[in-house]
Every structure is written in C-alpha cells, then in structure tokens.
C-alpha cells in the first residue's frame, strides 16, 4: 500500500513535471496564474526582449487592484495618484491585449483584488497549483489548492513556460479544535496563530490548517485564515476541501457545469491528508484560548487579546517597535485613541466582513475625530453590499464608501494614513509606514475596527454588539 500522503504532497506530486535533484530544482506545473499591474510589467518586458510568447494565456488571469483609485472618475477620468500609476495600469492593459490574456479591467463586473476575484470567478478550485506575483496568494489555499506568491522574475517564468522552479518546501499542520468564543472571528484566530508560532515560525513550510474549528468556518473565514499564512513566514496555507467548498464553487462563472461539476467534486473529495500522513512540524491550538485579538507593534506577531494591556518588550526590536507606535508597555489596548479606520484588503473585504462592520455601525456614528474608509474587495462585493443596503449603513454613519481595490492596505494608490496617525485596519501588515510614511497600524477584525470607529478608540466589539441588542 502506498504510504499515507498529506494534502500538500498529493497536489505537489500531481504537478511535478521534472523532479528535483541535488543540483537542479523541481519543475512544477501551474494551473492558474493570477497577475496584476504591479509585479507583471517587468516580466512582460522580459518576454518581449527575448521574443517569447505566453505559453498558456488561457490559464492566466489579470486584474487591476493595487494602483487603482477608489474614488470615482471625474469628467470621465480616473483620479490616479500619479501619471506613473495610470501608466502602470495602461501597461498591463496593453500587455494583456498583446499576449491574449483576459483582464478584468474597469468595465468588468468581476474586477477586484486578485485574491478576492479568483474564488468569486470559480477560477480557484481544489487541487490546483496557483501562483501570483503577490505574497497573499496563500488565500486560495482555503479551497484546498496549493497557492503561493512568487517574485517578478518567476512571473516571467510562468508566463513563458507555465512552470516554476521549486525545491519542495517542508510541511506543517496546525490543528485547531473546539468552538470559538462568541464574537471571536477568523481574523482573531489567525492573529493568535501568528502570535503563537511567530512571524518566522512558518518559514520554509506549507501550512495545512485542520481540526474542528477550521471545519466549522465558512469559506470566507477560511480565506482570512489562509491569507495571513505569509505573515507567519509560510510559503502557503491550505485547508482540505469539503462540502462547504463545493457548495461555494457550484455555479461560479468558471466552475465546471452539470455532470462535469459532480465529477470534479468526486475527484476533489480525495484531496485530504491521509490518516497517518506525516508533517515536518505539528502545532495544536485550542480554540477556547482565543480572544478577539489585536496587534500593538510593527509586525503581525506582536499581538494581544484586545482586552489586555501591552506586554513588556522582549528585546531591542520590540522596544523600537513600541517607540515607533507611540505606545507603552502596560498600557491597556482598550481606550487607545485611533484616527483612521480601514475596512478592506484581501484579508477582510468580503461580504461577510462588511456585514460584521455594518452590524457595529448600524444606527451609530463614526466618532468625529475618526476617518473611516470601507473598501470592498471586488465589484461583486460592492454590488452585493449595495443590494443589501450595507453601503447606506456606512454612509449614514459617516464612513466613506469607496470603489474596490487594495487601497489603504499598502497605500500605493494615494489612500494613505497621515503621518503619525494611528489606524485600526482589517488588513494584514502593520509594518512601519505600510499605510503611508510615518503611519502606525493596529491590525484587527472588521468588527473590532468598526467598534473603534464608533468609540474613537480601541473597543471590545463584543460589548458594542450586546449594547445594541
């Protein structure tokens, strides 16, 4: 009998075109290559220089998200932050046209953040290898795909050959069992995991998330978890597909139809780690130990339960982080004044995230000292939110309802947190200046971010909800 295999090993083995040797890496076939305006221009330029074609334009999908303005066009002109940003988008448009790649441009009902639209389109599915010149490609692992970020040079490799050169990473399984407490979200879970294993705890590994807690999560929550695998240093994060996965994918524009879909589901059911599969590292986490969680430093591993105070710095780097944040050890997180609230990014910009934020804001007002941006992850989310009237909740509360894109997650489109301001953000990185030069960031769930918008300071989202009830 064949030895038991993990989900990761099954997918890896099914895509190995040429196995690795001590002197050469393995050649891994890629089923879906997602691309956007920021990490692709240099790769397309390389193709042109060397006279190469895109090998499989049919397996390549492009969108515009990072440099795109979230304010509407004025007099038919999109308000790009710089002409260079406009050119970057135009360059992708040109490249997609010349190389025959489908681009979800401004006129597409499916434009949006690359990691939000892949699943929405049904392009993301179990068992696929998926890459993108973007580290949060791990998001797609929520569907039982092996999905990881690559650099611009590798984007060129995939365009030219539909393959990447890889050494097989190590594997880690994180098993989370038990029920999450009331008001504890998938974002709190992943922040807690990063705090537990550390920001380089996953380096060199592909993480499989398993256990009853993971099984209880819906697909959007699973995406939030897999999304931040990179914040723990991991190459990829993945979750075995189950009925929820299949139900999510049924009827999506690029999903197989009818009998072909049922046949696909039969194959997808095989995609789980066999009993007795071995992992290079195993971590166990008890769901009951997890509280609503927030970061207080300048990397995503510096986390505390939102109701607790900031711990003493462990070393000089943490000391420097606290100094940058303008926060003191011993200070309680609750009550810390915030200036900006951002609900968005590939971590938390899906419809359930917007619902959670709206629930906090319904019938309330954003604190007068706070600027709040709500940026849906895609045109689909944007429309769904408007159909449900969520946008009106945000607007009535005094928040800004913007067009889909990455926006303030990395602030390269002009949506920035002002110098020195403190933001609470549903995104994934709290690095120094990530949201603009001199900006400071607290990462938290959509509910916690919206609760802070109302209070003007960090607040326990569970308290707000019960007051409203």
């Amino acid at each position, binding site marked *: 009998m064949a030895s038991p295999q993990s989900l990761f090993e099954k997918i890896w083995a099914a895509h190995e075109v040429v196995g690795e040797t001590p002197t050469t890496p393995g050649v891994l076939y890629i089923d879906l290559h997602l691309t956007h305006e920021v990490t692709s221009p240099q790769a397309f*330029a390389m193709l042109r220089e060397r006279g190469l074609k895109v090998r499989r334009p049919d397996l390549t999908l492009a969108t515009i998200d990072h440099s795109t303005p979230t304010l509407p066009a004025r007099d038919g002109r999109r308000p790009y932050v*710089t002409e260079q940003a406009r050119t970057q988008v135009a360059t992708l448009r040109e490249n997609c046209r010349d190389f025959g790649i489908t681009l979800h441009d401004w006129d597409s009902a499916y434009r949006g953040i690359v990691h939000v639209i892949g699943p929405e389109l049904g392009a993301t599915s179990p068992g696929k290898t998926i890459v993108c010149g973007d580290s949060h490609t791990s998001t797609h692992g929520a569907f039982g795909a092996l999905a990881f970020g690559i650099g611009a040079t590798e984007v060129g490799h995939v365009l030219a050959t539909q393959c990447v050169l890889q050494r097989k990473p190590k594997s880690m399984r994180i098993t989370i069992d038990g029920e999450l407490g009331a008001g504890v979200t998938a974002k709190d879970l992943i922040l807690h995991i990063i705090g537990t294993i550390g920001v380089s705890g996953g380096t060199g590994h592909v993480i499989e998330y398993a256990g009853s807690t993971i099984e209880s999560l819906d697909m959007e929550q699973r995406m939030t978890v897999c999304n931040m695998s990179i914040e723990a240093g991991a190459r990829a994060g993945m979750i075995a597909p189950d009925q929820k996965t299949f139900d999510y994918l049924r009827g999506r524009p690029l999903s197989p139809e009818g009998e072909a879909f049922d046949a696909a589901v039969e194959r997808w059911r095989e995609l789980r780690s066999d009993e007795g599969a071995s992992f290079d590292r195993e971590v166990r986490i008890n769901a009951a130990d997890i509280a609503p969680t927030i970061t207080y430093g300048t990397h995503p591993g510096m986390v505390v339960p939102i109701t607790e105070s900031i711990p003493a710095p462990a070393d000089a780097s943490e000391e420097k982080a606290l100094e940058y944040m303008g926060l003191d050890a011993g200070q309680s997180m609750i009550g810390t004044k915030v200036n900006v609230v951002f609900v968005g990014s590939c971590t938390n910009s899906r419809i359930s995230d917007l619902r959670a934020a709206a629930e906090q804001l319904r019938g309330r007002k954003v604190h007068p000292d706070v600027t709040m941006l709500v940026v849906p992850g895609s045109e689909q989310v944007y429309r769904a939110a408007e159909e449900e009237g969520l946008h009106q909740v945000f607007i009535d509360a005094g928040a800004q309802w913007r067009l889909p894109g990455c926006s303030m997650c990395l602030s390269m489109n002009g949506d920035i947190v002002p110098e020195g301001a403190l933001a609470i953000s549903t995104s994934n990185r709290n690095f120094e200046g990530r949201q603009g030069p001199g900006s400071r960031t607290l990462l938290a769930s959509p509910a916690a971010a919206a609760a802070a918008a109302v209070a003007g300071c960090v607040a326990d989202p569970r308290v707000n909800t019960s007051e409203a009830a």
Partner: protein
Amino acid sequence: MQKITHLAATTVVIPQDNVDTDQIIPGRFLTTTSSEGFGDALFRDWRFDENDQPRPDFVLNQPAASSAGILVGGRNFGCGSSREHAPWAIRDFGFKAVISSKLADIFSSNAQKCGLLPVVVSEELHRWLLDNPGAEVKIDVEQRHIEAGPHAETFPLDGFAQHCFLNGVDALGFLLEQDAAINRFESQRG
C-alpha cells in the same frame, strides 16, 4: 545576471530583526514599470525625513556605506511581500550579498534571481557581524564558504542557485530547456 564567484567586501549593518520589504522599499515606489534604478528608494523612510533630507545618523547615509558591498541584516530579514523590487533596490544601491541568520523565503528566492547573493550564517557569526559593522568579509561561492574576523564556516546555497551565480546565467534558460517534458506533461493530463 552578473557572475559572482568570490566576494571580498566590507559590511553595512542594519541590526533590527524582522526588517520587512515595506522598509526596504515602501509601496509608493512600486508604480514603476521598470526593473532598474531602485537604489534611491532603498530604505527610503529610514534614510530620508519628511522633507526628503537625508537623516545623517542612518547607516546608509554614512560615507562607509558607499564602498560597502555586503548588507548584514537582523533575523528574518526581508519578511513581508513578494516584491522583487526589494532585492532590486539593495542590488541597485551597490550591494552584492545579504547576510543574516534567517532570511525570509520569498526574499531569498528573489535575491538569487536578480544576482544578489543570500547568505545564511550561524547565530555565532551573525552576532559577530552585528557587533562589528564595517568588517571585511570574504565569500567563496564555489566552496560556499564565508570568513569574517575569527570566524570561518560554510553556508547553505542551493546547488542550482550556485550554478547560476558561478556562471552568471539566469534560471529561465534551464526552464526553457524543459519544453519537451512540459509538452509531455500537458498532453498526459489532456
């Protein structure tokens, strides 16, 4: 890609742990479509103040930096995004190698692909390098060997990456040679 067989150069030390790619090159410099000329953006917000004036106390603004060839970073250097602009900026500033006790995965892979040598050393040597900024370091790529002060050790370097550095070739050539195998793979899957 430029060939690197041996390297003898002095270091610049940026000792903080977990230096992320947003520090190495902030997001706002990513709207370009070029892959060159990122040297000015390297550590932009650590090097320059709000008025774009150099901060004299930051190491990259000190005279020794311009002649240094090796960047020594704290643990988990290069974490964060997959932007290859980060190693491009380090390379464009004039560094040939980056040393740490732990380098982030994608950063390290990107560095190899643009001709910046990633060197992971023991905690001991790392500590010594952090404590001795400006030290002279010798690296032999063929032997995967590094010497600095009283220390000498070997470092891990993927066999294929080593081949690329020693011969100044990039990986695409190798990948293009796999065409027949890729065709076979595609036709077998139908």
